[in-house]
């Protein structure tokens, strides 16, 4: 276990990646965090200031100056980001002026904190520096990768807090990052059990922090293995489970609520980092290369191409929506590892136009990815023409595939079923198209965008070929709050027998049906303004996006 964590620490690429976990680690060790300057900045050489107890049991002020990886001569003494000038600044400026009054007089320990080791070439320099400046009231400590790994594995992730079977799940999850399905399965077992442990009030915050640290470690390993798929999914799962931990505390507030909410935001930020790694670095650069991403699936199966591309579209949309939420609704400057929203949506349309598998999903549940991306388009307010073209083309292909009974979307999501779809035996077509959320989604949006002729064609096709199909959408109901975020059971309200016809009727019916149950409005994530968590749950658990999300927009309401 320690080895995993040490390797993780050594692989951290940015100084502030180490920043990300230290505060939680310190908190778990009983430290009180005094200050944690904003991302990317130091406060007179100090990255983290905390108060804790030294080995002698004395209460001390700990001032951490953090660097990534090994400490080399360059990192020690060269340039603005070097450690020695930071240490000088701490002694010359921070200590005299920035320590809070209540802690003045306490012994001060300056901690040199880095993910790797001190290189031998500067060992003497560093030791000499520390020795020369150590006094009765000021001392130095080195928190290298090995020490931090030990603190983590014997601290927050120690055996009492992370029992053997959970450690096993965690280790397997990390070891099998190149098999994302298996890695995710083990991580899911870990997170679920950590959440269940966190059901006890006293353990809630710790569970949240444990989840967070585990996701970070998984991500760094996955990044090294050049496959962050499992880390992405694990992070989504982590956010949903941490929300599950925080939601009982929402109404009463309190310090636990605050702490877990901090962890939640940290996870959201981590989600953005992972998303930037995946979407920003691996997908977007090839958005304008014809068929490049389709071919990059490296598969001879059309199913694989379709599944992966729609999955990526959904992930891209989710990232964009989180970015929008952070920037617009919370007025938080989220890390702009990726492009601005308009540019992101534009790149997504480049991907769609250059990878035509994205014109029609192979199974109905992929309508979630389409809905998420449509919401993102709405949020960006841009590229409406391209959006319309996409939807019109999707509708045309849907019509064609149903009429010719070739590659039409099926309700099954099982991979084996998709491989042999469509079968030619009697009754199969009706079975495979027993229900649809895609058609009402498309029809509703096409109506809103004024493409009544296209919807009329869909109506005709439905009348001729799909009159057995239950046209439906889905929204949350009272039972959803309990089950939504962790998918513990079936929940929600099916809005059934929707009329596929041109005009405003469809949207009106959907709106009216949504109004019959206040389940959606009463979702905790909705009430607190954390609505992206609902969308994330829909994406993660392959639920349709509730139409409540888009029906409010003027595109749908300003119609006669």
């Amino acid at each position, binding site marked *: 276990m320690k080895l995993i964590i040490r390797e993780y620490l050594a692989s951290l690429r940015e100084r502030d990646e180490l920043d990300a976990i230290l505060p939680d680690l310190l908190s778990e060790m009983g430290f009180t965090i005094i200050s944690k300057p904003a991302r990317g900045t130091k406060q007179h050489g100090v990255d983290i200031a905390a108060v804790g107890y030294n080995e002698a049991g004395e209460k001390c002020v700990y001032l951490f100056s953090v660097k990534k990886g090994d400490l080399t001569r360059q990192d020690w003494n060269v340039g603005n980001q070097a450690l020695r000038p930071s240490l000088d600044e701490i002694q010359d400026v921070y200590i005299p002026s920035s320590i809070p009054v209540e802690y003045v007089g306490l012994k001060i320990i300056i901690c040199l904190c880095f993910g790797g080791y001190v290189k031998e070439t500067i060992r003497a320099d560093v030791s000499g520096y520390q020795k020369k400046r150590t006094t009765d009231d000021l001392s130095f400590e080195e928190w290298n990768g090995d020490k931090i790994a030990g603190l983590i594995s014997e601290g927050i992730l120690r055996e009492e807090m992370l029992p053997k079977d959970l450690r096993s799940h965690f280790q397997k999850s990390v070891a099998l990052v190149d098999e994302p399905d298996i890695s995710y399965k083990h991580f899911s077992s870990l997170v679920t059990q950590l959440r269940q442990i966190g059901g006890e009030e006293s353990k809630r915050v710790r569970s949240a922090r444990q989840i967070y640290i585990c996701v970070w470690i998984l991500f760094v390993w996955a990044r090294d293995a050049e496959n962050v798929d499992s880390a992405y999914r694990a992070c989504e799962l982590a956010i949903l489970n941490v929300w599950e931990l925080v939601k009982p505390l929402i109404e009463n507030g309190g310090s636990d609520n605050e702490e877990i909410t901090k962890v939640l935001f940290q996870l959201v930020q981590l989600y953005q980092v992972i998303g930037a790694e995946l979407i920003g670095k691996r997908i977007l650069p090839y958005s304008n290369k014809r068929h*490049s991403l389709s071919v990059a699936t490296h598969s001879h199966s059309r199913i694989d191409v379709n599944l992966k591309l729609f999955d990526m579209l959904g992930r891209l949309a989710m990232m964009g929506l989180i970015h929008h939420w952070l920037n617009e609704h919370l007025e938080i400057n989220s890390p702009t590892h990726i492009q601005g929203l308009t540019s992101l949506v534009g790149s997504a349309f480049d991907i769609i136009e250059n990878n035509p598998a994205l014109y029609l999903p192979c199974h109905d549940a992929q309508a979630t990815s389409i809905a998420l991306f449509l919401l993102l388009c709405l949020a960006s307010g841009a590229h409406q023409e391209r959006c319309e073209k996409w939807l019109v083309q999707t509708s045309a292909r849907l019509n064609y595939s149903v009429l010719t009974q070739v590659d039409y979307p099926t309700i099954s999501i099982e991979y084996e079923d998709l491989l042999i779809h469509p079968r030619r035996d009697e009754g199969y077509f009706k079975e495979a198209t027993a229900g649809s959320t895609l058609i009402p989604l498309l029809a509703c949006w096409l109506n809103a965008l004024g493409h009544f002729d296209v919807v009329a064609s869909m109506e005709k096709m439905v009348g001729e070929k799909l009159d057995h199909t239950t046209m439906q959408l889905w929204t949350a109901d009272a039972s959803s709050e309990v089950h939504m975020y962790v998918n513990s059971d079936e929940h929600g309200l099916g809005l059934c027998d929707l009329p596929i016809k041109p005009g405003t009727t469809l949207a009106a019916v959907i709106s009216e049906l949504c109004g019959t149950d206040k389940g959606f409005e009463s979702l905790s994530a909705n009430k607190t303004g954390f609505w992206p968590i609902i969308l994330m749950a829909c994406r993660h658990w392959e639920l349709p996006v509730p139409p409540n999300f888009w029906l409010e927009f003027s595109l749908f309401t300003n119609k006669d």
Partner: protein
Amino acid sequence: MAISREQIIQLYKSNKLLRAFSIRFERLNSTEMAGPITLCIEAHNSGDINLLSLLESPEFDEISSRDFFAIQQVYIKLIPDLNAPVDDMMHCVDVLVAKAGDDLAGNLPFTAFTTWCANDLQRAYHIVAEAVDGNNLATDHLSFALEALDDVTEARRIMLAFNGNRRLAAITALGRISHNDLTTVKETIEQFTSVVSDDQDEPTLSALMGVLPKILDGIGTFEDAGATELLYAVTRSHADGVLHWVAAGLFSHSAVFTKQALKIAFDALRKLKRSNKGTVDYLDTALSQLMHGNACSEVTELVKDLLLNSDQGFKISDFDSFGGALVSTNQAHFHKTLVAWLGSGNQQLCKAISELLQSIEDGGVIIDIPAEFLPEEPALQFFLARKAIGFFFISPVTAASILVSILRVAHKDSRSDLEDLLFDPMQINYGGDLSTYLKSIAQDDLAFDSVQRSIERREAYINGLDQAGVIKELHPSQMQRDRARRKSNDEVRRSFKDAQKKSVFLNLVKRSVLLHGRKSVSMVYGPGGESRPMEIQMQSHGVSAEFPRLSVIDPIGINYKIRSFRVEQLIDEADHS
């Protein structure tokens, strides 16, 4: 085999003579059989044995099919020289023919019977007289008797004097009796004409049609004999039997059909029913022969009309011999036909030409269509190109070669669109043989520049594909790969089994399955019981096919595009306005 007359008589008396015919005589060649045959005839003619009565015996009823044909061959040699009452001989021949059933060799005893009649013309006269009197047995054998008499006049007389079976027998006989010169033929034709004018029933017309080409063969044509009107009169009923004999006549005696007669015959054959398989097969072979002559256009036009007859549902596979001849015999005509059929936009014709070429060469035939056969209008060139892609998409070299042919003569307004087609969907989907073919286009070829541009576009496209490199997050999981592979293996295994079921070869040989090793050795035993080891070195055999790239990347899109190319039609500007 040495056998004495006494032995033959002894075998006869012990009811074993038939068995001897099937076992001992069968092993003899013609020369060896002559002696025993003569002995049998002598024994029969002297009354020591009655060979005809053997065919009434219980032993004959019980013989197997294999033994029967051996016996039949013996009787064919015996019959001509046997002395026997006419009725008995007719009866004997009938028994032999009936026993043979539908076998192609079933009617051979009739030939022997005819020789028997010819050997003593009194027999023939007797049969004729009996037939004239209305004797049914005699009527059934009338044609052979008339043939034996070799008397055209007598045969004509019977034909004119009677109708029904006697007329049919006389007509049949006229087909076998030598007409030595054109005058004789003309006289018979004249008499046929008078028959036709008052007798339109199908058996008569069929019999006449069966005979007409035969009597003309070697003497003259329908036109020479003034028989074209008769041909028309016979064929205009379009009766199934008549059409069958038209096809048979074209098959066996095509030289007698010149332009006008061919036109009459083909006009009749346009009413052919697909369900008459035998006639269709005859016709197919006949047409393939005619393709070697001057009637290519007419033959092709006939096949085209048959394909377009939606009531019957003819397919090009019904005319595979014709198809082979179309492709291989006359290149200019083939190119002209290909352009006409593809350019028509008619689904049946386009499908036919596509299936024809695919059946000939799976890997793709290169078709260089000369400029003179290609349309000049840009819209028609573009239409033809799209049709070629639509129907030859899975034979990319063929499709591309047609495009290249068009590019050579492309109007400047359509050149760019044609180049686009060569790139997308052709080169976007295929590399391999297609790339090899396009790179082989010579520098002095009129299409070279266009092809080069298309190749460059493809190279840029492929470079773009490679740029993303490895994106592990987009890869399917190992489990998914395994399942996809298993599904693919199952499909291949099923196809292999289905193909094996259709293999005639596999039903003839013993199959051994080698589990290990690169060669096998086993003992084979000779007729004398001697053995020797036989070694067989294993060889590998495989087939490969290139799948279009978009069948994975965009299956619906490419399906739709190819289907559109196939079904689209030219807009008639007059209608459109």
